[in-house]
């Protein structure tokens, strides 16, 4: 599994270009999240791809060839903070609700909706933690689940920010045609 972070132009069709590229390279995307940045013209993506190191390099380098991708970085081997968010609707009635509440506490999750025969648990954290909670909830009956997909950030002073004008690569328009 390879994790990439990318900054892209926030405009129609860019997600298609990114996913189409992965398809062309025969790389399966495990998770892809897109969200806004403080610059409304730029969006940030976290891509988790089902491929090896070589595929990760190929994907990174090919992504950066797309005109609308400002930066793509394979962060798989970096010190990384990863988060996934899940909403899980579990079957619950009076008899087992207290037991469920206990489990939720242990996993530092929250109950965000209670109905007579179900409740919704919100949990965020590393993928393993969510998978772990899911495992123990299964016997109660998981009715529905929604997961956000992973977002990732390198730790500490290792910054990944969109390029600013000063460092960006302005290709100079030159005399293009041979007369």
């Amino acid at each position: 599994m390879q994790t990439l972070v990318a900054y892209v132009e926030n405009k129609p069709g860019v997600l298609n270009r990114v996913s189409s590229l992965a398809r062309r390279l025969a790389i399966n995307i495990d998770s892809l999240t897109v969200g806004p940045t403080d610059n409304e013209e730029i969006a940030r993506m976290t891509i988790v791809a089902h491929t090896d190191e070589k595929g990760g390099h190929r994907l990174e380098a090919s992504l950066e060839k797309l005109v609308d991708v400002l930066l793509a970085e394979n962060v798989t081997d970096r010190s990384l903070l990863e988060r996934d968010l899940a909403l899980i609707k579990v079957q619950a009635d009076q008899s087992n609700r207290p037991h469920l509440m206990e489990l939720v506490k242990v996993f530092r999750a929250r109950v965000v909706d209670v109905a007579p025969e179900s409740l919704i648990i919100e949990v965020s954290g590393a993928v393993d933690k969510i998978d772990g909670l899911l495992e123990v909830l299964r016997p109660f009956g998981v009715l529905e689940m929604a997961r956000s997909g992973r977002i990732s950030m390198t730790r500490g002073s290792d910054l990944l920010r969109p390029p600013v004008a000063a460092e960006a690569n302005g290709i100079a328009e030159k005399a293009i045609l041979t007369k």
Partner: protein
Amino acid sequence: MKLTGAEMLCESLTRLGVRHIFGYPGGAILPVYDALGRSQLHHVLVRHEQGATHMADGYARASGGVGVAMATSGPGATNMVTGIATAMLDSSPVVCITGNVSSKLLGSDAFQEVDITGITMPITKHNVVVTRAEDIARTLREAFLIASSGRPGPVLVDVTKDAQQASAEFDWEKAVPKLPLKRVRDNHDQAEFDRAVELLNSAKRPLILAGRGIMLSGAMRTFAQFVHTAQIPVAMTLLGIGCFPAKDALNLGMMGMHGEAWVNNAIQEADLLVAVGMRFDDRVTGDLRTYAKSARKIHLEIDRAEINKNVPVDAALIGDAGETLDKLLPHVQTRDHAPWLQHIAGLKGDSAVRDIQSLPDSGHLYAAHVINDLWKETRGEAVVVTDVGQHQMWEAQYYHHDQPRTLITSGGLGTMGFALPAAIGAKFAKPEADVWVVVGDGGFQMTMCELATIVQEKIKINIAIINNGFLGMVRQWQEFFYDKRYVATPLVAPDFAALANAFGIRGERVTARGDVVPAIRAARESAETVLIDFRVEQEDSVYPMVPAGASLNEMIRRPNSPLVETAVEP
């Protein structure tokens, strides 16, 4: 100055230095054609939009500039797909302009509406839909910039009909390209560079693999200087042919599937490969597991995505070929590689004896004879545009190119039907050049409608059809690997000379070896286009050959005495 979008489009192309547009009109691009009629731009009416893209591609390859193709929406646009993919695979800077239905109708399955940007996304370097007249000038400037910078490639600009019809203020100065601000990667890793220099200066059996990147970079002189300083022999990719003179003693010739055996054996025995502007395509490497096992590798390449894609390398120097060679040059030591060069000469063995040119005249006409005679008659100075298949390989083997941009061929995609339209494009780029189409009877029949374009445009090129009555390369594979079961390869063709006459073009047929040179001379002397139908040996094969997937040194060699069983029909 207020202009319609269509007028802006023509004005922008003119200001970008465009002189010729290869295209075909239709409903969704009509406003542009109306404006074209009032502009200084010369429009070449093609007979099929695939031809338009190949012409733009041929123009780009012959000139080193950007070629422009134009078509209407729907089928006009989809007909361009093959030509766009051809340009993509060979990194050719082509800008395709398509009309589309009005922006309000987009997505409504309107008449002749197709999502051409969606269709061409994986085969263009970039593509874009323009729905507002005021965006046309800027978008075209961006398109030319993207197509021609870095690793070049095709860009498609889809302009909706309402954007063509609307009027807006035209201000060229303000319409500057606004491309996304990309991160600059620091590609100048000193450690990597030092390692490359060390490898270069310590190798005993070095070999340079030269590709089209040298041509695209315009680095021919720097490259020659590099080769002569380092005294390293050079093997060429098909698309690299011409970037280093064939007559140079250090030029070994073409490598790969149909490269000469000694070239491939030299690659397999080398202790260092210096790949310059080439991408280790499967047609040049054969089986990757056994490819150049004893060699360290240095890769000079502009595209990061090509590094370690097929062949892992010891030092990757990312950047423009010319710039990287310039940086390397002062560090390159001149070494005496005489023992290695002598060894390679020894690898030639009896190849020269096996060469078909050395065989006694059996009265039969071989394609190799035709091409070798063409080379001699044109003194190697023609611009030769080939199609795909056996004739393409024979051309690469028997026409020796000393000048860049004199061989134009579809390498990566291997597009049959490329030659004739690409040659028309090349002729517009180099009106003074002696342009020769070398094409098989199969490929010619794919785009022969462009003969009418030649007549309408009153241009002069020469067409040599290497006619063996088969889809020759496929037949060869059937002979070698499918026990001579010739399924769907025997090919009926019209009388090409008579066909040419029907178009108003002089046509001739040559069946004997002695008639080859006079026919070539007569064609060159004629002021008008001449088509020559060379009826060659039907079941001749291209040797040597590395079977697909085999190791580079496992070549099928040319038989000592090729059997001449099939008589040429008179």
